C-alpha cells in the first residue's frame, strides 16, 4: 500500500491528540510541558508533509522556526517552574492558584 499524505496527517493528528490528552490529564507541570513539546513536534510533521507535497522548501524553514520557538518556550517555562518550586516546594499544578505570593 502506498503511503499517502493522509497517512502522515493522521499520524500527526494522533500524536497531537496524545499530547493534548496528556496536557489535560496530568498534573505534574514538567510533564505538561513535555506534552506541549510533543504537540509542537506533531505540527512539525504536518509542515514537512505539506512541504513535500508542494515541492516547496518553505515548510522546512518554518519547522526550523518552530524548533527555535520550542527551545525558547522550554527555557522560559522551566525557569518559571524552578522559581515556583523554590517558593512552593511543589510542581503540582493543582496547588498553583495565585500568580503572586
Amino acid at each position: 500500500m502506498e503511503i499517502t499524505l493522509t497517512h502522515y496527517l493522521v499520524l500527526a493528528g494522533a500524536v497531537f491528540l496524545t499530547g493534548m490528552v496528556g496536557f489535560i490529564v496530568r498534573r505534574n507541570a514538567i510533564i505538561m510541558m513535555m506534552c506541549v513539546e510533543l504537540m509542537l513536534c506533531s505540527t512539525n510533521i504536518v509542515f514537512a508533509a505539506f512541504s513535500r507535497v508542494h515541492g516547496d522548501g518553505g515548510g522546512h524553514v518554518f519547522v526550523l522556526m518552530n524548533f527555535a520557538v520550542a527551545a525558547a518556550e522550554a527555557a522560559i517555562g522551566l525557569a518559571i517552574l524552578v522559581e515556583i518550586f523554590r517558593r512552593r516546594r511543589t510542581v503540582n499544578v493543582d496547588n498553583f492558584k495565585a500568580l503572586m505570593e
Partner: protein
Amino acid sequence: MEGFLFWFCGTLMFLGGLMMVVQRSAVVSAVWLVFSFLCAAGIFALLSAPFLAVMQILVYAGAIMVLFLFVIMMLQGPVLDGERVPIKKGLWPFIALPPAAVIILLVGWVKGEGLRSLGDAPAPGFGTAEGVAQLLLGRYLLAFELISIVLLIAIVGALVIGKRERKLPWK
C-alpha cells in the same frame, strides 16, 4: 520499504508519546519523549527532509530534552505529590471535549478528502542543508533574523527569572 519504515517509525512514535503520558515518573516520561522524537526524525527522513531529521535529533532530542532532564533531576523529591488524586467526576465531559473535537475534525477531513498522494519525487536538493539554507538566507531572511531576537529575549528572560536574590517587599 517506505511503507514498512512509515509504519515502524509512526507506530513507535505514537507509542512513545503514549508511554510518556501514562508514566508516573517524570524521568521515565522524559526518556520516552526522547524515544518519540527519535522516531519523528525517522518520519522527517521519510518525507525527504534529511536536514530536518538531523536537526530534530540535535535540537529536540539533544538540547531541549537535556534541559528538561536537568530540571527534573534538580527538582526531584516531592515532585509527584498529588498525582494520585483522582479527577473529579463532573470534570470528565470538559476534559473529553477538546480531544473529541480533534477526532471529529480529523475523521471528517479524511472522509471528505480521501487519500491524497504525496506526488512526484521532489527536485534534487530538496530538504538538504543547502536547499534549506538557500531559503533561510534568501526568501525568509527577515523571519530568520526575527527568530534570533526571540531566542535572545528568551535567554534574557530565563536569566532574569532564574536569578536568585529577592527580598520581596511584601514578605
